[in-house]
């Protein structure tokens, strides 16, 4: 998504949905998301961007943790069904790329609706598990982030100091192979 498209998305879809209230906007900030025009737009609409640390989206981003995968499976099911129905029709001739795109768009929309109808509480539960919890800390034990146990938010007034937060996180190289000790 380039910056122009992102701006348009924010203006025409996001801002009208927020009812003018202050908003916490968690996202994985990419290059095109942090142009000064975008940041100004967010600022003027009382939207606070909360940047998900790089490399951690799979752990703390609700979409990655709980939504993307089942939603895509649903899209696949719906698409398969639609293809089957259409190809079974007597007057079916052939697909064009355009047809596919239109059909996929419909299926994504339908999947998104279905997912929200059936899984709404799942979505809010995952927001809680990844950090949207009561500010008095009473439910911090609900934090549930893969790979961490007994994670405590602790003194939120202070951040841990990091020289460069990317410096210490290595991108895994899938092709490397190593020996590991088995626990059992």
């Amino acid at each position, binding site marked *: 998504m380039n910056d122009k498209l992102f701006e348009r998305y924010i203006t025409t879809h996001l801002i009208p949905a927020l009812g003018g209230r202050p908003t916490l906007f968690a996202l994985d900030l990419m290059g095109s998301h942090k142009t000064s025009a975008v940041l100004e737009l967010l600022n003027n609409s009382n939207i606070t961007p909360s940047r998900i640390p790089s490399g951690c989206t799979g752990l703390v981003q609700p979409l990655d943790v709980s939504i993307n995968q089942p939603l895509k499976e649903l899209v696949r099911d719906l698409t398969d069904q639609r293809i089957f129905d259409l190809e079974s029709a007597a007057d079916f001739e052939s697909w064009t*790329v355009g047809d596919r795109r239109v059909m996929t768009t419909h299926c*994504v929309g339908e999947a998104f609706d279905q997912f929200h109808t059936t899984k709404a509480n799942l979505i809010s539960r995952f927001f809680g598990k990844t950090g949207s919890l009561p500010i008095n800390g009473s439910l911090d034990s609900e934090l549930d982030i893969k790979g961490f146990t007994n994670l405590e938010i*602790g003194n939120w007034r*202070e951040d841990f100091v990091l020289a460069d937060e990317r410096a210490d996180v290595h991108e895994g190289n899938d092709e490397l192979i190593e020996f590991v000790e088995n626990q059992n």
Partner: protein
Amino acid sequence: MRKEDRVAYTKRVLWPELEDRLYSEFIEWRKGGRTVRQGWFRIQSQFQFRGIYLEVNPAVFRFSNRWFRGFLGRHKISLGSITKKAQKIPSDYEVLILNWLRFNRRDSQPRRDRYWEVALKRPVGRYELSNICNLDETPLPFEYLEEKTYDLIEEKTVWVKESLGWDKRQASLVLCVFADGVPRVPPMIIFRGTGKRLGRE
């Protein structure tokens, strides 16, 4: 292999001192977070052998596959790909995540003059659940879009895929979800190269 053979195979330890040393070195290296591959075992074992069995001709010890497999089996060491390391989270991530959680908590604090009014009504702070959202863009694999139903384009499709790379062929999906689970922003699909957007409905 008969059962007795297998037992003999795993139990017969030719160089127990070497194996113990090698194993403890291995554990040390792994504790340091370093990657250990077969070459490491080969070099270490030959080096350690010379140090332990001073009277034995080092050529006697051959780093054979059979010995190596036995060694791995006896010490319950297995080959894992590094991708599986994702299950073991580097401690660096903990700091990053905590900082992020703290930022959110700090930012969610109600304004001082309205603290109690807000804190009692909205436990998560100054944001309503309907105003906490998460946006992300993920690839939508193109099998969704172009199934191998038609044969004519087939060849061409493969060729194009190779020359342009996945990101040119894949569509991406932009989703925005809200903490109360209410859909407010329709999903958006971005198709590459058409210059045209097809939002939902």
